[in-house]
């Protein structure tokens, strides 16, 4: 079951990526990337490493976190529910089968595409700063999200009002997607909405880079907004989760600006490397 859904996902993303690279990036940037990729990768290497490390921790922790959460987490489901009540049910009033399909596809495929494409696009820029900022912002989103997930136990609207959201509920319409979402997340992790925060992060970067990728900017904004709405439309997140996701995105984009280039890891390592290089011949001649 999981395999089928994964294959579909890979195929769809595999088609979308080359198409969008052709439309949004252009041949010129690709050509330059071919000659410069080594230096760019070296410059961005430490950031890539940090992101991969965070993703790995995230992956391992998501298996242990529910148990830890059970012991130390605080239950906020009823709190969220009491604050916003049946707010997300306003999306039920606009529900149509077409919108069901649109938001389901956006939630699964649109979101995955939205996260992967900018990584490729920004790598084609000669200046790696924006690339490194994006990866840093991703890493921050995941890191902060993970901490909040451990401390906050909350179930989404679908778990509280299953009958009310059933017409538009992602897993009621497409139960097969639950095989993939359960691999990624536990059902107590709804605050904040990482779907929203990561999409909003991408949209914010699209705004920052709109002179480089003018055509990508409107697409990213529409897609990001759709992802955020889809989480509520499909009954997965509360409005509060989405609001928190937007705040988290703003925080991560801002932090990425302050953190990137603050400590140059590569310089740090180069210093050490030089020291070793200086020391080694000296020791040998001794």
């Amino acid at each position, binding site marked *: *079951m999981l395999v089928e859904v994964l294959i579909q996902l890979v195929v769809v993303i595999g088609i979308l990526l080359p198409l969008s690279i052709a439309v949004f990036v252009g041949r010129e940037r690709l050509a330059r990337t071919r000659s410069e990729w080594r230096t760019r990768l070296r410059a961005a290497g430490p950031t890539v490493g940090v992101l991969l490390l965070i993703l790995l921790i995230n992956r391992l922790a998501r*298996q242990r976190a*529910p148990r830890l959460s*059970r*012991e130390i987490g605080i*239950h906020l*489901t*009823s*709190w969220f*529910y*009491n*604050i*916003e*009540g*049946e707010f997300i049910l306003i999306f039920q009033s606009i529900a149509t089968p077409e919108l069901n399909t649109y938001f389901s596809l956006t939630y699964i495929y649109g979101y995955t595409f939205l996260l992967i494409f900018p990584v490729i696009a920004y790598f084609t820029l000669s200046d790696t700063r924006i690339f490194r900022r994006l990866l840093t912002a991703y890493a921050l989103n995941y890191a902060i999200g993970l901490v909040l997930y451990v401390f906050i136990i909350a*179930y989404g609207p*679908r*778990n*509280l*009002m*299953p*009958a009310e959201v*059933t017409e538009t509920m992602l*897993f*009621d319409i497409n*139960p*097969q997607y*639950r*095989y993939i979402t*359960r691999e990624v997340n536990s*059902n*107590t992790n709804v605050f904040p909405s990482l779907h929203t925060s990561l999409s909003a992060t991408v949209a914010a970067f699209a705004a920052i880079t709109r002179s480089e990728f003018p055509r990508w900017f409107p697409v990213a904004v529409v897609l990001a907004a759709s992802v955020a709405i889809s989480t509520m439309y499909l009954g997965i997140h509360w409005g509060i989760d989405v609001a928190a996701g937007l705040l988290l995105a703003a925080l991560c984009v801002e932090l990425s600006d302050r953190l990137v280039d603050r400590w140059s890891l590569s310089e740090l390592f180069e210093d050490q490397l030089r020291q070793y290089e200086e020391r080694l011949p000296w020791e040998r001649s001794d």
Partner: protein
Amino acid sequence: MNRRRTAQNQDGRDGGGGTRSRRAMLAATAGLTVSSSGCLRGVRNIVTPDNIGQLSVSITTVPADSARQNVRIARHLEEHFEAVGIDVSLDIRSDIDFLRTVLYDHDFDVCIGRHPGGTDPDFLYEALYSRYADESGWQNPFGYADQDLDQLLEKQRRLSSDDRSTVITEILESIATEQPFVPICAPEEHRVVRTDRFDGWENGHLATRHGYLGLEPATGVEALRVSHADARPTENLNPLAADYRRGGTITNLLYDSLATQNGTDEIRPWLAESWDWDGQTVAVSLREGCEFHDGEPVTAEDVAFSYRLFKDISLGALEAPSPAPRFRGQVDAVESIEIRDDHHLEFTVETNETVGERALLVPILPAHRWRERAAEVLGTGDASIAQGTTETVVTNNVPAIGSGPFQFVSRTEGDQVVLERFEDHFTSRTAVDLPEPTVDDCTFFIDPGSVSASRAVADDARDVTSLPLDANAIGGVEESGSVERIESASWSFYFLGFNARRAPFNNYRFRRVIAGLIDKQWVCNEIFHGYARPVASPVIEEWIPESLEWTGNDPEVPFLGTDGELDVDAARAAFENAGFRYDDRGRLRVRH
């Protein structure tokens, strides 16, 4: 915080032009509120001089992912609580957390759950006997204590046949009047099976080991692919862990018991070859040559050990015995066990044969693996039980070594539990006429929910759904040539549980009014889509006395309204009749 919220509540009602629309009230109560923990209540008592205030109730239940019906009943109740002036909040917890909160920690006001019930009304002894009120587990989680009911519960264990039936009727009538918990409805059990790969599904009840034995595979079929819509067995296979067990279907394949019961059929010999009653003693003969999955022989010592362990999971290491959180009522029937030789034991029971034989249904554990688990564990941060926690209840027991017809191979957390046929099981002997495992492999695949599970069977990825389908998934099953939906006997029931340790849930008048806030018929029609029947008694149909039969409404605590719509004035009047008071803002007041 509470005051501010109720003030908004009042505004909402006035804004609605005096009409008591519950939806408007719900929307208006969207103010900030925190569930009523004891700590907060304490704070409130300090800041407000008197200790009279609005009744705050939290309803503990599981999320829709675990069981869609529970949370819907909880919201039905929540709406009606709000309407009668009770400050209410929902407390949604995962299956494991729910059972620990309700069964182990007793940290709830009211809860909505599915009770395992029983094929014999004796399960009510375990559920309501007052001496169990302080223990953790399925034994009296409600903290209920009633002298008259105690005596009746004891009496039905001793009397036989007609006399027993009379007492059981009295018990059920007492439950109906006192409402120690509210039985809501008895769900039908439907499952989906593939008939092209296996035949014989109708022979065994799929909630028991019999459902997975004696199946007739088509030629070339060597694996049974079971869809299990509950991931807990991938984490823990401990037959004593009440927080991880539902019906214990998988552990019953791994462990044998002396006797066995196929659905509601009569209790028959299993690991015991036979037993003979002589008054209150029963001589049990074990089958010879049985082995545990690790090759150790199954002896009378293992049997006696298992019962000793269930009676005291510390095996005497703690100051007072610590009974296991499962099987309490069954094991309590056994007064003593004497080992005659390696394969013969003599049980002395304090009960009639019916109840005594139920004691033979508990799993037999290998003493050589469990003896060392009797040591006390402290501060695990995990489950802890009131009577004393030992490794016995907190171990995940992976790999599980039993003597059952299937043995443990591997598991992947959240994904699957792989079992294989235990070649040496006694059912495989030609002289033994009992259903045996007919496949080499039996894998329990975890599917996320009933709908996915039944789809996986339809897509030929699974052969059977082991757990009964959620009511919302039943109608959607498309039966084709090789996909069939089968219905089996059911003895579990949905209930509203009160924590009688906390006021005002200790007051039967209060409980009766609360029971009248649930429209059981509406719940069955709307929430269970007709796949459940409303009940006034928590036992299977053949035991329900005429006086408590369903007659379109509850015979004892009828719904205070019609078609799911509460008659708010009638309900408020019922609270006042029961001796409760409302303040000038229409809030139900209680002394904390």
